[in-house]
């Protein structure tokens, strides 16, 4: 069992790499990449035997008391169950591959060591999330990931757009995280415990307070909305493309965004317990998928298209969760991680080769970038849902779940599937087929270090779907639902329709874009209105800017103004008041009191002037006075 406690090491290796790279960045310089790759390889080394162990049926769980909260102690530790194992497998594999790819991609960058430091910090965060056994540790690593995405998006900090993007990313995710934090708090007050293991029976215990459960579930789901870029909070992902492509691939495709879904999976007992929560999740998932797909149609930047496709696929997974098929969601997550990473890396090597990201300038790259093109094709086919590739199986499962859940969801999701296929192949055709539109682009194939991971991923995206397919008797589903057996109905109609939709989408794309952009523009003009909507991303960004960010700052300025004027005014006012009061009392003192004193002095002076007249110096005067006084006194006295 000694290996069990090694689980802690999985996240610690990347952390170590981060510390080394960040502190000794100047000395390590270009060898930094090898440190971080080595670290992630090491964690793979440790992780896979554990995964095999988990496949073998054992669930590793260990925790230690971290925080004494008075009544109850918060315990931290790791939990390796099938869910964690799958994620672990995906993250370690894809992470390492992308880091190897990044060596080539980032060669020659100014802050090379810092990039890899952030990457390894991200790996630590992601691995932390995967293996954590309670919501709080989950949340902490979740936040570390957010930090890394912020740092990496803002890697090219010279560009203003990058600066805004990273800020926007962090803030939007932060909004989600706050919801998540509240969820944790609610959960703690509700169930008294945050650990996943005890979650199930704790929920059973409080099944009666339905409202609380729903609220907690939805609050937790906020985290997912923020992190996995679901509808209200998805705006940051397209802008996140400002970061280097490997970052986009690793973080904004494969792992981090997936963490949101993983969170829902972890909190699944809660969602099962409350129907409303599930429905909300489903709705959000579907809406996200559909809208993202629409916007992807008209995107011209290669990475933007992929970003929107990621959002839509995430929408898919969330919808699956909402529809009650947690397993399908995870399965799709795994498959999506592979081919989406591949797509991004492909796009990366294209950008690396051509130096531009704009579709309109590309074209005819197939002959020049053979391996990139082929791997790109495989990935596109996979995502479009063409059997036997990975995408088909997972998407099919989801569609099946949606079909069982509710027709409305099924129709929306299948429409999304059609749109997905269409815009993927629009992208493929515009970049690789046809004639090169921009003459001064001299595309060249990326070096081996970059194309290698592409091929590995390509193989992955082909094979990874199989364990979940009916060919392998849904081994994967059983693996995930270890606890309780579930039958796997196969609904051929759903399967056939999805295949048909996928092929139709591909064909339409070929039709429209084979001759370059011409056909595209004509269609755009005819469908003017919807085209403009899609082009402007449903004006969500503008809406946010207008109704949220600007008022936010305005309110801040208002409050500051208020603070300066009113509150400070009050203080200065009292100051001025006391000054005034002191002036008045000063005046009072000066004129009234001093006045009376002077008056008294003057009066005595006046009286004494009168009496002075008596001092004539004549002795007789005095005698007269004395005599007169004596006489009168006697007179009045004695009479």
């Amino acid at each position: 069992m000694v290996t069990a406690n090694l689980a802690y090491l999985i996240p610690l290796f990347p952390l170590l790499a981060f510390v080394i790279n960040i502190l000794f960045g100047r000395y390590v310089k270009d060898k930094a990449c090898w440190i971080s790759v080595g670290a992630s390889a090491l964690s793979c080394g440790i992780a896979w035997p554990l995964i095999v162990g988990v496949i073998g049926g054992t669930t590793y769980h260990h925790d230690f008391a971290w925080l004494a909260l008075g009544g109850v102690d918060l315990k931290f530790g790791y939990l390796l169950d099938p869910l964690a194992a799958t994620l672990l497998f995906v993250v370690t594999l894809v992470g390492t591959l992308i880091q190897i790819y990044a060596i080539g991609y980032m060669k020659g960058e100014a802050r090379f060591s810092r990039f890899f430091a952030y990457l390894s910090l991200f790996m630590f965060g992601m691995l932390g999330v995967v293996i954590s056994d309670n919501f709080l540790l989950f949340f902490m690593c979740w936040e570390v990931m957010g930090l890394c995405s912020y740092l990496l998006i803002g890697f090219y900090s010279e560009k203003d757009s990058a600066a805004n993007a990273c800020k926007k990313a962090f803030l939007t995710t932060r909004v989600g995280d706050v919801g998540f934090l509240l969820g944790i708090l609610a959960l703690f007050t509700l169930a008294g415990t945050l650990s996943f293991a005890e979650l199930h029976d704790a929920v059973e215990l409080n099944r009666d307070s339905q409202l609380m459960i729903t609220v907690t579930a939805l609050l937790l789901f906020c985290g997912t909305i923020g992190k996995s870029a679901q509808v209200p909070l998805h705006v940051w992902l397209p802008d996140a493309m400002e970061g280097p492509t490997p970052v986009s691939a690793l973080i904004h495709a494969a792992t981090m965004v997936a963490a949101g879904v993983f969170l829902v999976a972890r909190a699944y007992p809660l969602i099962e317990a409350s129907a409303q929560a599930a429905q909300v999740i489903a709705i959000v998932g579907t809406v996200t998928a559909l809208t993202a797909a629409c916007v992807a149609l008209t995107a011209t930047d290669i990475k933007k298209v992929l970003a929107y496709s990621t959002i839509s696929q995430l929408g898919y997974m969330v919808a699956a969760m909402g529809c009650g098929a947690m397993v399908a969601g995870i399965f799709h997550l795994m498959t999506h991680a592979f081919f989406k990473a591949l797509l991004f890396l492909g796009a990366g090597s294209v950008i690396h080769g051509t130096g531009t990201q704009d579709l309109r300038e590309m074209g005819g790259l197939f002959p020049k970038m053979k391996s990139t093109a082929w791997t790109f094709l495989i990935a596109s086919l996979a995502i479009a849902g063409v059997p036997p590739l990975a995408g088909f199986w997972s998407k099919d499962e989801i569609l099946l779940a949606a079909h069982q859940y509710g027709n409305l969801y099924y129709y929306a999701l299948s429409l999304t599937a059609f749109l997905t296929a269409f815009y993927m192949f629009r992208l493929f055709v515009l970049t690789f087929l046809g004639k090169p539109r921009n003459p001064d682009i001299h595309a060249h194939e990326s070096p081996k270090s970059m194309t290698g991971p592409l091929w590995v991923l390509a193989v992955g995206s082909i094979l990874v779907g199989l364990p979940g397919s009916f060919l392998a008797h849904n081994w994967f589903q059983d693996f995930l639902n270890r606890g309780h057996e579930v039958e796997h109905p196969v609904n051929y109609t759903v399967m056939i329709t999805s295949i048909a939709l996928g092929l139709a989408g591909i064909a339409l794309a070929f039709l429209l874009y084979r001759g370059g952009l011409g056909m595209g523009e004509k269609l755009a003009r005819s469908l003017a209105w919807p085209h403009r909507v899609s082009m402007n991303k449903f004006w969500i960004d503008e809406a946010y800017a207008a109704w949220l960010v600007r008022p936010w700052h305005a309110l801040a300025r208002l409050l500051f103004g208020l603070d300066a004027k009113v509150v400070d005014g009050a203080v200065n006012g009292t100051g001025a008041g006391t000054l005034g009061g002191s002036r008045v009392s000063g005046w009072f003192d000066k004129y009234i009191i001093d006045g009376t004193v002077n008056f008294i002095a003057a009066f005595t002076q006046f009286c004494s002037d009168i009496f002075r007249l008596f001092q004539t110096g004549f002795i007789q005067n005095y005698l007269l006075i004395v005599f007169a006084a004596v006489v009168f006194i006697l007179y009045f006295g004695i009479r």
Partner: protein
Amino acid sequence: MIIPLEHVLLFSLILFAIGMVGVLTRRNAIGILISIELLLNAVNVNLVCFSRVSEDPMAGQMFAFFVIALAAAAAAVGLAIVVAIYRTRNTVQTDEIQLLKW
């Protein structure tokens, strides 16, 4: 007692009043002293008359006797002072001797 007491008292009263008027009005220091003598004599008259009618006649006369002696002493000193004043101030008019005037 040849004449009734009250007449003598009246006489001394009038004498006293005249003396007082003299003291108050005289400008000359010596004039004042003269008036003072009048006052004292008026008092003496009173004393003697009362001693005449009182049971203990000795007291009155003895008192009068002392008054005379003292009056003489007073006059002596007073006039010495007047002489001294005259020698320094070259005048004995009281309204010219007013160093204490404000």
